């Protein structure tokens, strides 16, 4: 037992690490699912600008991935998840979520259908015990393959142009579809998906293809100012897009220590995904009861006056009674507005007489602001190019 050295490298390197490390001029790293990931390479504003105005590359390797195969794969996923996996066509991708028996969220993620009996789940947290328990009685194999796949997210209005320059013609690829493309004697998979609310693609390959592909992509993208981005810039983009993140906007039921923390899909604005007609799924009966009784919480988008981010702030009704809290907030450069994602008690979801108490740090001194907020639709930022067919070329 003397040769154990895992404690010397508490965070794994992704297959792109040689490139991300040399590009990370600030040495700003953070942990994500056990991996070292760049929070910022050099300048968060330039990185954000690449997402919205050029082409950005985010290392997606730490995203947790499970492969589900077998004759019962569709039935299994329909019992596991709230959306109808059987209706997802081969070559399709959809956003979905899954719950415990009480109808409380365990995670959300994307589901890729590679074949009639071959699916891939991509999500934030690890769930193998739950996925295996859920497989009891189903003819399926469930395996975690996080480390078998290297992935990059290429996002921005120039992303289709960059891919074309790289010899990958994705012009026929519709949003939430994927296809396989030849690369260097092998193949990679490209899906028109992303977490920025912009035109973008996710590129899936084997770890041995990672470095050659990175070099090829950056060479092809140079004319468009392609730039690696860190989590800070991505987080700003995802807030503008109104996307939620597990453990940032809600606590997964299996991790929550406090009884009142778990949230249902109805409470997190994911009710539109639930297929009530597909048969039983885990949590369905609890969700039906919640639907009948009314939910306790609601997720809302907020327009906050001024330019101070409302991150972590508490919301009040009539400036007096606590009504909820902000889970994500930012000054949006695209909208020139301060926006926030918040959980509020369901009766305040309309936003009437709703206030946010912001502690603004001004030169070592907190200043307390009590500002009226307006409930607005998410996504806050929703450019037409996100869904345009064929994709915009610049």
């Amino acid at each position: 037992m003397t040769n154990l050295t895992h404690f010397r490298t508490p965070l794994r390197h992704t297959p792109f690490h040689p490139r991300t490390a040399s590009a990370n001029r600030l040495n700003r790293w953070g942990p994500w699912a056990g991996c070292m990931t760049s929070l910022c390479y050099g300048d968060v504003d330039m990185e954000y600008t690449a997402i919205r105005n050029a082409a950005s590359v985010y290392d997606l390797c730490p995203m947790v991935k499970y492969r589900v195969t077998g004759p019962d794969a569709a039935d299994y996923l329909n019992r596991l998840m709230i959306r109808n996996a059987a209706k997802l066509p081969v070559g399709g991708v959809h956003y979905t979520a899954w719950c415990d028996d009480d109808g409380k969220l365990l995670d959300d993620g994307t589901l890729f259908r590679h074949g009639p009996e071959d699916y891939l789940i991509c999500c934030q947290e690890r769930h193998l015990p739950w996925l295996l328990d859920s497989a009891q009685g189903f003819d399926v194999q469930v395996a975690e393959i996080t480390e078998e796949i290297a992935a990059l997210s290429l996002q921005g209005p120039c992303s289709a142009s960059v891919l074309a320059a790289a010899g990958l013609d994705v012009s026929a690829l519709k949003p939430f579809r994927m296809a396989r493309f030849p690369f260097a004697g092998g193949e990679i998979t490209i899906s028109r998906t992303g977490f920025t609310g912009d035109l973008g693609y996710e590129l899936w390959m084997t770890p041995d293809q990672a470095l050659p592909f990175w070099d090829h992509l950056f060479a092809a993208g140079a004319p468009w100012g392609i730039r690696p981005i860190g989590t800070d810039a991505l987080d700003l983009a995802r807030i503008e897009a109104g996307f939620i993140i597990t453990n940032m906007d809600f606590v997964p039921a299996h991790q929550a220590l406090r009884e009142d923390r778990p949230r249902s899909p109805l409470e997190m604005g994911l009710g539109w995904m639930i297929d009530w007609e597909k048969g039983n799924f885990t949590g369905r009966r609890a969700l039906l009861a919640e639907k009948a009784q009314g939910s306790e919480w609601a997720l809302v988008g907020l327009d906050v006056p001024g330019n101070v981010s409302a991150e972590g702030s508490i919301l009040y009704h009539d400036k007096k009674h606590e009504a909820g809290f902000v889970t994500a907030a930012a000054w949006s450069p695209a909208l020139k507005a301060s926006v926030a994602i918040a959980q509020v008690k369901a009766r305040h979801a309309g936003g009437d007489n709703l206030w946010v108490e912001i502690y603004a740090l001004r030169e070592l001194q907190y200043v307390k602001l009590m500002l009226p907020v307006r409930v607005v639709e998410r996504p806050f930022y929703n450019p037409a190019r996100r869904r345009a067919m064929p994709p915009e070329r610049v």
Partner: protein
Amino acid sequence: MPSFDVIVIGGGVNGLACAARLAGKGRKVLLLEAGAVPGGGAGERDFAPGYRAPALAHLTQGLDARVLHGMGLARHGLAFDPVATTVLAGQAAPMVVQGGQTSGPDAAAFAALHAKLSAFARVLAPFRADKPPRLVAEGQPWGRLLRQGLAIRGLGRDDFRELLRMVLINVHDVAEDELTDDRLKGLLAFDATLGAWLGPRSPNSLILYLDRLSRGEGPLWPRGGMGALARAMAAAATAAGVALRCDARVESIFTEGDRAVGVRLVSGEEIRAGLVVSAINPRTTFRALVGPRALDAGFFRRTGHIRSRGAAAKLHLALTGLPDFRGGDPASRLVIAPSSEAVEAAFNPVKYGEVPKAPVMEVILPTAREADWAPAGHHVLSAIVQYAPHAPMAGLEAARSELLENTLAVLEAQAPGLRGRIAHAELLMPQDIEARFGMVGGNWHHGELAVEQMLFNRPLPQAAGYATPLPGLWLAGAGSHPGGGINGAAGWNAAGAILEARA
């Protein structure tokens, strides 16, 4: 085809009780039994040509009084004879125990202990007669709980304190505290752990003794045997209007629109009803009959974790003559458990999948009461032998022959010459009991009766009130509160819950 309000799966004691109560309240009930006759663990079987023995259970601590009277079983010919206990230990003279009465140096101490434990059992008994209390306020029968709580408090300060001290204690400590005679300590230890996967030193073993006392004061023999009990219950159920179908094994429970709406038999026949009530094993009900698709993943996982280890084997011997147990009354219950330590020592090996060298056992000679169960002058011996490994390391057949050999050696020591009179021997291991009676793990309570699987945890918190997460499906078997033991309370309570819910 006639349509039914309710289908009850499983014609055991609880299934019969549940079906009869529902039919008595005007429901159209179909009772489906997989075997050729109803009764489940209560039955009889010709295990060798000319020799008949109880199929599984051979004594009862008594049917639930509500079942007995509610079904009018006396009118259908059911009567019980109390059975005294004869304790056999080493070379000592047999000792007779009837209730709290016995002889020897501990006679007074045993009477006092019996009186104390019986008083505890009396105040706990009402909990058997309804749905278990819940851990949430909603739907709680506060009035009943208050009455039951006051009854417990009515024991008086000292006895109430004594109950709280003892309720979760192990029976070995109680025996050590209260008694000196190893024979009585052995009897107490044996009776507490009979049918359990526990030794006398295991935590919480005394509560099983209290549970036994709360079912009845002492062992009873149904006149005519367990088969007669089953026949009387079946006749009463039929008279109440229950349609009873035997040789009808249910293959699956089918659902429509998130509701159990009927059953499919192995023959392929489908029968529909407004409600499906399962009086068979809960684990089998959920995992084999319902399946994962209609149940949530967390609940389905838990159904696989209902602990159900059986440690009791059943011995049937065909004897060419009456064995002599040192002059012990052959019509009594003969308990061979020389001391509490001996019971514990018999339990230890099964933890490792091994067979005890000197098993402990409860022996009856049914032919002392039912002479026609064997050819003239011949006899039948029926014994519950503990402990048998539920997962034998050496394999089932090797464990069976080793346990049979060890059991016969113990019997021979108490009844010299017995081995020479054996015409036929049958030893049912827990695995055989599972295969014959559908008791998972061979546990005759259809899930271990242990503190952590009692009340609101029996068989699972989400299905403890007889209703299950699947609308239209109810439980009524021994796997539900308050457990089994040829008693019928679970089935009777389930029917009550169904009627109360107007389901």
